[in-house]
């Protein structure tokens, strides 16, 4: 069993590395061949399927980022709101790499630099230090800034702040008009965008008469109409009621699963991060850790250091452990927890 897994891993990495090197030599300049990973790196407790799955997740991601194009490729990004050269850094030497089609959650305490970081992706903040490529475009190149912004859309916390028209379809058309979309193509693009967020039929409504979740989906449709490669959600569910949050999260997951958009999600709700492919944790302007949801969200020490709380099922898992009750796997969702508790023996 163990040897089989090792074989699969070795093959996957070797394939990924050599394919990637041929196809995207530019991306591979600073990637070492992953020959360092061998059987010794499989966790000692490999008998537990959970650890093997963590390990495979990680290897899978490495293989994936090595093989595919990168939506975000940032190195050594530092930023200060005060003035250049200030010691008060909001971002301090941040490197981040997100593969095309990945769904990545960025978690961190208030003021940890999450929003400052993602504002660079859309060139709302210009680079002070470091390098950044967004959808293959250099974020420093101001000549192509509008091209970059078309590739990377953002949805913020309060949709009311961004409506420009009192009619839904005009609001969605606003971005298209600014990008000189031929007038005859606009209606079809607007309908397609509304269909993607499940809001067909709302063309002539007023955004202000809609519920919070609906407003947020209209804001998302305005972004989608421009056919971006990347969509950043900066706490887009924070103000919504439970139903609105569900609507928006379902829509985000559909865009990831079916439309293969690159999704970057900033949230304070750990339950939303569970569904990401990968999580970055930020603290005081730095990247503290990155990994799969299972790696990150079950690491109590790491989360405490980042001033974050683990998801409730994880807390229960560890607290039960202290009381001498051992669940076989650490659950991430409420449903998994109930399964584990019912299976307890």
């Amino acid at each position, binding site marked *: 069993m163990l040897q089989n897994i090792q074989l699969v891993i070795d093959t996957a990495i070797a394939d990924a590395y050599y394919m990637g090197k041929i196809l995207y030599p530019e991306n591979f300049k600073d990637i070492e061949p992953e020959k360092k990973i061998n059987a010794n790196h499989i966790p000692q407790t490999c008998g537990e399927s959970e650890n093997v799955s963590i390990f495979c997740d990680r290897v899978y991601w490495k293989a994936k980022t090595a093989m595919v194009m990168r939506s975000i490729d940032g190195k050594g990004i530092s930023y200060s709101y005060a003035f250049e050269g200030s010691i008060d850094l909001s971002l301090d030497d941040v490197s981040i790499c997100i593969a095309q089609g990945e769904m990545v959650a960025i978690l961190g*305490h208030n*003021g940890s630099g999450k929003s400052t970081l993602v504002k660079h992706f859309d060139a709302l903040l210009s680079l002070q230090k470091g390098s950044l490529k967004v959808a293959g475009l250099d974020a420093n190149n101001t000549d192509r800034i509008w091209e970059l912004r078309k590739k990377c859309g953002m949805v913020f916390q309060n949709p009311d702040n961004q409506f420009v028209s009192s009619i839904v379809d005009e609001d969605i058309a606003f971005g298209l008009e600014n990008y000189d979309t031929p007038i005859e193509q606009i209606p079809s693009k607007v309908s397609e965008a509304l269909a993607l967020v499940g809001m067909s039929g709302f063309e002539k409504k007023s955004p202000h008469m809609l519920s919070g979740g609906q407003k947020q989906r209209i804001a998302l449709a305005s972004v989608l109409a421009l056919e971006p490669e990347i969509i950043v959600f900066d706490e887009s569910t924070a103000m919504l009621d439970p139903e609105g949050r569900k609507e928006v999260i379902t829509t985000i997951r559909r865009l990831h699963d079916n439309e293969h958009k690159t999704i970057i999600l900033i949230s*304070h709700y750990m339950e939303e991060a569970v569904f990401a492919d990968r999580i970055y944790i930020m603290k005081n302007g730095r990247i503290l850790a990155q990994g799969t949801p299972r790696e990150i969200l079950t690491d109590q020490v790491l989360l405490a250091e980042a*001033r*974050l709380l683990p998801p409730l099922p994880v807390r229960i898992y560890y607290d*039960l452990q202290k009381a001498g009750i051992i669940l076989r796997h650490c659950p991430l969702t409420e449903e998994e927890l109930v399964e584990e508790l019912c299976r307890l023996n």
Partner: protein
Amino acid sequence: MPVELDQVSYTYAPGTVFEAAALDRVTVSIEDGEFVGIMGHTGCGKSTMIQLIAGLLVPSSGKVLLDGCDINDGGYRRGELRKRVGIVFQYPEYQLFESTVEKDVAFGLKHLALNSAEVRSRVAWALETVGLNYGEICRESSLGLSGGEKRKVAIAGVLAMKPQILILDEPIAGLDPVARDSFMQLLDRLHNGGTTIIIVSHNADILGDFTRRILVLNKGSLVMDGAVKDVFSDVAQMEALNLDVSRPRKIAHLLGQRGVAIPQDIVRYEELLTALTHLKKSGGLP
């Protein structure tokens, strides 16, 4: 100083095509020193209700009473009301406007006939209460702070008035989990000091942990009013209203559905943990 709503209705834009009944004959009484949560689907009338209590809206019909006095009566002294009832809106950080944090927090106090030493000590108290260091922050520009800090400064501006009734509309949205908890601890301290707290939130976990009583509004009517565990006991009803119950309650509910004999009045995390440990020891878990 109890708050009473007596058959209060409120209609927006009456007589126009946008006419909408936001609140429909709501009668409720909140006693001194209570810690009350208000829940409800978007558009249920929560914000309307708290604006009526704060005297920012005048009811279409019915009465809002403070200490037995109708606050919308011609002879009622509104200045007194503003001093006693503090309200923190959604996104309070948007209301900052002064050039420094100190000036912003002191803005309301300037109208209270206090001398400058008193103003300064109240500002310092309010900033320290929300967890900011007065000496470090008082001369900063309020607009240059992070989102979380701005919110704290805005809330300090309300606290500085030392209101007896503090109303908050979604104050924890957008705060990280630790900030959320420390903010609620702050409300808990104010509550223990005798302040009446009325908080609107979708976060059932937080309401379950801190409030004693929950009001549920639906389409402008008060549909539930009771102790937290009673309101959360009917999970199906809450789901029908598109509202969450606290997650410990939800887990107990899911376990109950699977035939596990776990108490169904669990609200808080510690209660769930104790029940699970107890169940395992008594052989109640499979």
